[in-house]
């Protein structure tokens, strides 16, 4: 138990260091951006008509003060960390004065809902079918699946997404192609809204599953193909154990460990959003929020999204690190 506590403490320190470095890098990179949020705001504000140059000079000065850009970078750095520790990323510069945390809070459930479900479906299906294909190597249906997986996997994501759009949005228009739900529905736990969300998520989720399935399938099939030749599997089969038990308890379970690590990384990574999915399907989420923030030079929002993402990936890795010794006794507590 003491060994596990020491292992836990060590991983926790690693986690804190990784988060600290990651967030600092995000701060440096966003502040090195050539996009000036003040100029972006002036361009938007003055789009209404003819604005006298003297007025623009006054506006520039006032915006710098309003956005907190008049202090030194060191002062901004201190302010940033004090806000991060309070869970407050300050106001968004491109949606001033709305707090960054509100914007992320509104977008995150969409991203999390879509990506967690599609990632889990992809993972379960990919590993299950890959495991079966690796074990029942002569099965024609599973062989065909392998061919399809290898064929679909390298297709660029946006091509698959556009094909789905054209097929189900135009040629056979039975599925919604844009948005997270139908217009004019009250958001909440009511059936019209929930069913609408489910229907709107089918195409984006399907595109992610089609593209993601191949890598899990091929990875698992390859792992299982190696494991079936291991002595303990051959011994179990020779001993006359039921093939389903050999597959479940001897083969798949041993092959799963690296796949679980991959799953944790994928789940942590969902907080980056799925930019192309969101753009192609007009689906709400943090990916679009992040891209728009980069173009607008909205430091606060970029930092908010990246910080949440860094913390999420790090937490995912930490959790796996902590669970690994429990699920795989071969991992040493060092």
């Amino acid at each position: 138990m003491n060994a596990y506590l020491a292992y836990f403490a060590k991983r926790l320190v690693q986690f804190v260091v990784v988060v600290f470095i990651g967030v600092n890098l995000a701060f440096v990179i966003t502040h090195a951006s050539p996009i000036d949020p003040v100029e972006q705001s002036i361009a938007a504000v003055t789009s209404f008509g003819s604005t006298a140059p003297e007025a623009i000079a006054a506006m520039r000065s006032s915006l710098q003060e309003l956005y907190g850009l008049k202090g030194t970078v060191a002062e901004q750095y201190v302010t940033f960390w004090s806000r991060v520790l309070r869970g407050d990323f300050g106001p968004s510069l491109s949606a001033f004065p709305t707090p960054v945390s509100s914007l992320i809070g509104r977008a995150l459930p969409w991203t999390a809902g879509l990506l967690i479900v599609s990632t889990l479906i992809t993972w379960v299906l990919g590993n299950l079918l890959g495991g079966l294909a690796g074990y029942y190597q002569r099965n024609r249906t599973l062989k065909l699946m392998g061919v399809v997986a290898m064929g679909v996997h390298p297709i660029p994501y946006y091509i698959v997404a556009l094909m789905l759009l054209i097929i189900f949005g135009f040629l056979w228009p039975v599925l919604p192609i844009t948005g997270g739900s139908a217009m004019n529905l009250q958001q909440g736990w009511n059936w019209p809204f929930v069913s609408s969300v489910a229907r709107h998520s089918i195409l984006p989720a399907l595109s992610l599953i089609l593209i993601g399935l191949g890598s899990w399938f091929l990875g698992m099939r390859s792992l299982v193909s190696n494991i079936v030749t291991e002595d303990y599997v051959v011994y179990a089969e020779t001993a006359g154990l039921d093939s389903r038990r050999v597959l479940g308890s001897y083969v798949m379970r041993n092959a799963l460990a690296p796949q679980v690590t991959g799953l944790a990384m994928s789940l942590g990574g969902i907080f980056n959003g799925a930019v192309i999915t969101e753009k192609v399907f007009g689906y709400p989420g943090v990916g679009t929020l992040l891209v728009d923030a980069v173009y607008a030079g909205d430091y606060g929002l970029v930092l908010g999204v990246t910080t949440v993402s860094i913390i999420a990936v790090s937490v995912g890795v930490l959790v796996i690190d902590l669970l690994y010794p429990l699920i795989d006794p071969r991992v040493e507590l060092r």
Partner: protein
Amino acid sequence: MTRLRAWLLAAALLALAIPFSPTPATAQGIPQNIPRKELLILENPEGTIKNAGWFNIWAINAGSQSNGLQQAALDTLWYIDPEKGLDGPWYNSLAADKPVYNADFTEMRVKLRRGLFWSDGVEFSSADVKATIDIQVKNANMRFSAVLANNVASVEAPDAETVIFKLKKPNSRFHTNFTVRWGAVWILPKHVFDKVEDPAKFDFNKPVTLGAYTLHSFDPDGKWYIWQLREDWQRTSLGSLGKPGPKYLAYVDPGPPDKRVIAQLNHELDVIHDIAPEGMFTLAKQDKGTRAWFKGFPYGHPDPTLPAVIFNTQNENLKNRDVRWALALMIDVKAVSMAAYRGAATISAIAVPPTGIHPEAYHKPMEAWLKDFEIDTGKSKVKPYDPTVGKQIAEMLRPSMGDQIPSDPAVIGNSFGLGWWKTNVAAAGELLTRAGFRKQGNQWMTPDGKPFVVRLMVEGDLRPVMTRAGTMIVQQWKQAGIDARIDVAQGTLVTRRAAGDFDSFIGWSVETWGGHQDLSYFMDSWHSQFVAEPGKPQPLRNWQRWTHPELDKIIEDIRKIDFDDPKGVELGRDYVKLMTREMPIIPLMAYNVFTAMDQTYWTGYPTSDDPYANPVTNWGNSRYMFVRLKPAN
């Protein structure tokens, strides 16, 4: 394994059955529970709105503007239509008449209309106009604070229908701040903002409107907004022109261009703000119900905006007008038009957009001068203007586009533009030689012996049509011996443009009213008093950082005359002549916006045949089309 196959088959059938069970009609992007025949669906080109529940347009850069807010819900004193308007381009909206200035333009008096009401039943009055100024001047961090504080010494409302603005300095164009072209200083409801502690942090949700529509519902995730016609629409300025056809307006984010095309083909998006030319051609071919501004080629509505090659005239190599003219003479605008718009462009040789009232005020009257215009290269004298370029583009397209290309020369002139500069690489070389440049092999060298490098900045994917134009120009300059390079700025263009961090870029520093001949809208800011030192931020809109004593004189003369004074056109023509001689920007074409209008549910859209309004969905004055739209049978 048999069981496995059975499970797989069952799963596949289930997966197919679940999503496709509802009817297609409910599966698509149409608002629920609103009759389609009462609903007009328009694109909001701002896309997904981050802070969807923010309607305080008077706060800086806070929420959406073209989600219907400035088109349907807000109002101000005057509007100018970029086209001909319902009854002329000028509208007295909240004002009862045109502005009245004193002799030295230090005071503006406005008479307001009576009988107009806010959507909560409070009557609009001069107190609202005064509060609009006072609140923003008092709170320096609001959208129009700087403009108003810069101009207004005080504002008085002696009675409910009179407002008197005392200005800090003479300004014969002060009223244009309250005149909608795309937007303007909108009037806020005093009775609402009086109760607010910090007006810059007030979300104004639900908005109290002065326009004919009020907010029905919106998506908290910013994808759509629905506005409903007020029951008392007669008590709004728009209502005085007739009852708006659509009971509901939905401003939506339909996604990327290909999805906009699909949405319109599915009749789920009545008005597309803009798409790529190829998308427009697809719609024209596949959907007989789609109508664009022009019935055939070039389809798009020419905005009163002039895309041009804008030089940084503070760049040592580009200070000399001979060099700028040389670069202009290396361009074949026909190829640029084909590359950018697949030929669906309206070209302009002069520095005024070829749209609205301008062809009659400037382009056509100046044809004779342009034909006689001569450049002395030092070795020869050339007349660079070719009045047939627009016609040549039409003829280039005729074999492939057939009947879509007009044959009437007048229509061709309006659609494709009149003339442009003949490509003349030899004359360009003579001009460069006179400027001290020399040719080494096929490469032009600067007077100090370095390769003549010209970077042309474009916005990349953010503005693909202009990027394609820029790429073609760079190719033509390269062929003529310039070390030209495309410089993709993507999202940094705005910052770099202001900082002067470019050699040249494709953009526009000329924007006009369209429906009015006055050019001060953009030109006033071109005065040399506003040009920044190299490296310092340049205010709108003289991105070329160009100064000229003659230009200053024209601007100062315009400042001294009334907005409607016919002398304004004469001064405008002087400006065109100066710009042609000096070429600080190379005018290319109008910014054609491919606004596609589906006539399946609505008819009566504005078009070039009946140019009563601007159909481009995000313009504030697009509201005038609502009163002419009728449900289709």
